[in-house]
C-alpha cells in the first residue's frame, strides 16, 4: 500500500543569524609577489586593486581556519555548536577528498551528529551553500545550518604566472542560517555555463601530476579578458534578476557584496548595475585578495565589524567563478 507520508515541518522563512571570518596572520604585500614575477606594484594595483593578501602558514590549515570562522559565526548568532544541525563546507583547496572535511568540522566544533558534507562550486560556493541552507531550514531538515567558504588558494597559485600570481589569498568565512519570521534570504538566481569550463580552471589534473606527465604542481589559471567580460556584463544581469526576484528596488538596497575577484570587476559591475550612490560596496579584495568561496562572508563580516554596514541592512550578494557557475540573492545582514 502507498502509506501517507508525513512531511517535515520547517520554518516559514530563513535568515542569516551570524557571520564570522578568519584571515591568516601573515600579510603578503605586492613587493613579495614581485620577487617571483616581472611586474610592478603599480601594475598589480591598477589591474586588480589588490595591495595585500593573507597567506596561510603551516598551522593555518583548511580545518583550522574553518573552525576559527565557524566558532565566531556561531557565537555571533548567539548559539552553541550543539544547535547546528547541518554543516556545509565549500572549498576547492582542501587536498584530501574523502571523507568530507565537513564531518571533521562538525565533530570538532561539538555539533554532535549534524549532517555534514562538502560542496564544490568555486567562487559561487557561498551562494550555493546559502541556497541549500535556506532550503533545508524551510523544508525542515535542519534548524540551524553552518555554511563555510574556506580556501588556501596560495597552495594553488603559480608564482611564475604574472597574470595570476598576485590574485589569490587564503581565509575562511562562515554564516549560520536558521529560522525566521520574515524572509531574510531572497530567491536565488543561479546556474552554470559548462561550455565555458576552460575559462577558469586547474592547470592540470591530479592524475597527470601523479603520473609525472607534468612537473608543475596544479594551479589555477584563467582567461582574464573573457572572465572580466562575463563577470561585468553577464553577472550584472544576474544580480539585477536577483534584485527583481526579491522585489527589492535599487533605492531599498544598502549594501552590495560581489565576489571579491578583482576591484576592476567590482567597479565595472557597480557602473553596469547603476547602483545608487548610497549603496555601500564591499571592496575587501584590496587587502584580502581573491579568496574564492570565502570572499563574500569575509567581506560581509568586515563591513559589519567596521560599521560600514549594519545588522538589518539589505544586501545584494553575487558569487561567480570556475565552472562557470554563479549564484546571486538578496539577504538581510545579521
Amino acid at each position, binding site marked *: 500500500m502507498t502509506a501517507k507520508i508525513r512531511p517535515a515541518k520547517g520554518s516559514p522563512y530563513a535568515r542569516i543569524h551570524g557571520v564570522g571570518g578568519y584571515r591568516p596572520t601573515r600579510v603578503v604585500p605586492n613587493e613579495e609577489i614581485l620577487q617571483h614575477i616581472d611586474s610592478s606594484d603599480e601594475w598589480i594595483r591598477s589591474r586588480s586593486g589588490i595591495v595585500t593578501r593573507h597567506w596561510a602558514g603551516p598551522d593555518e590549515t583548511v580545518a583550522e581556519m574553518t573552525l576559527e570562522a565557524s566558532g565566531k559565526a556561531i557565537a555571533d548568532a548567539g548559539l552553541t555548536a550543539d544547535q547546528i544541525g547541518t554543516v556545509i563546507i565549500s572549498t576547492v583547496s582542501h587536498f584530501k577528498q574523502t571523507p568530507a572535511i565537513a564531518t571533521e568540522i562538525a565533530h570538532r566544533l561539538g555539533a554532535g551528529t549534524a549532517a555534514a558534507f562538502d560542496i564544490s562550486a568555486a567562487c559561487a560556493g557561498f551562494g550555493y551553500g546559502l541556497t541549500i541552507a535556506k532550503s533545508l531550514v524551510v523544508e525542515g531538515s535542519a534548524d540551524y545550518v553552518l555554511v563555510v567558504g574556506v580556501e588556501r588558494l596560495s597552495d594553488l597559485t603559480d608564482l611564475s604566472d604574472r597574470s595570476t600570481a598576485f590574485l589569490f589569498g587564503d581565509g575562511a568565512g562562515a554564516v549560520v542560517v536558521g529560522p525566521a519570521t520574515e524572509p531574510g534570504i531572497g530567491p536565488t538566481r543561479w546556474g552554470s555555463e559548462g561550455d565555458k569550463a576552460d575559462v577558469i580552471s586547474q592547470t592540470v589534473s591530479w592524475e597527470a601530476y601523479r603520473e609525472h606527465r607534468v612537473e608543475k604542481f596544479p594551479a589555477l589559471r584563467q*582567461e*582574464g*579578458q573573457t572572465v*572580466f*567580460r562575463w563577470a561585468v556584463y553577464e553577472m550584472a544581469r544576474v544580480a539585477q534578476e536577483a534584485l527583481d526576484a526579491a522585489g527589492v528596488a535599487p533605492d531599498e538596497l544598502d549594501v552590495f557584496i560581489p565576489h571579491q575577484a578583482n576591484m576592476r570587476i567590482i567597479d*565595472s559591475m557597480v557602473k553596469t548595475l547603476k547602483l545608487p550612490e548610497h549603496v555601500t560596496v564591499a571592496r575587501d579584495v584590496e587587502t584580502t585578495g581573491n579568496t574564492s568561496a570565502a570572499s563574500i562572508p569575509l567581506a560581509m563580516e568586515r563591513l559589519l565589524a567596521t560599521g560600514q554596514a549594519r545588522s538589518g541592512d539589505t544586501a545584494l550578494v553575487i558569487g561567480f567563478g570556475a565552472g562557470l557557475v554563479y549564484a546571486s540573492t538578496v539577504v538581510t545582514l545579521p
Partner: protein
Amino acid sequence: MAATKEEIITGLAEIVNEIAGIPTEDVKEEKSFTDDLDVDSLSMVEVVVAAEERFNVKIPDDDVKNLQTVGDAAKYVLDHQG
C-alpha cells in the same frame, strides 16, 4: 543605416574618452590602444562592449586580441556591422 569609417572612429574616440579619459582628438586611426592610448586589457573589454552596443556588432573575445589599433577596430566594425 551603417556607419562610415569616419563615424566609427569618432564613435570609438568618444567611447575611449568615456572609459579611459583620453581626449577624443588623440584617438586617431593609427593609434595603438595599449601603447599609445593607455587602454589596458580590461578597459579594452569595456571599449569592445560599448562599441558592440553603439554599432550593433558582435566582437568575440578571440577577435579582440587582433584589434591593436583604432583603425583595426574601425575596420572590424565596418566589416561586421548589422
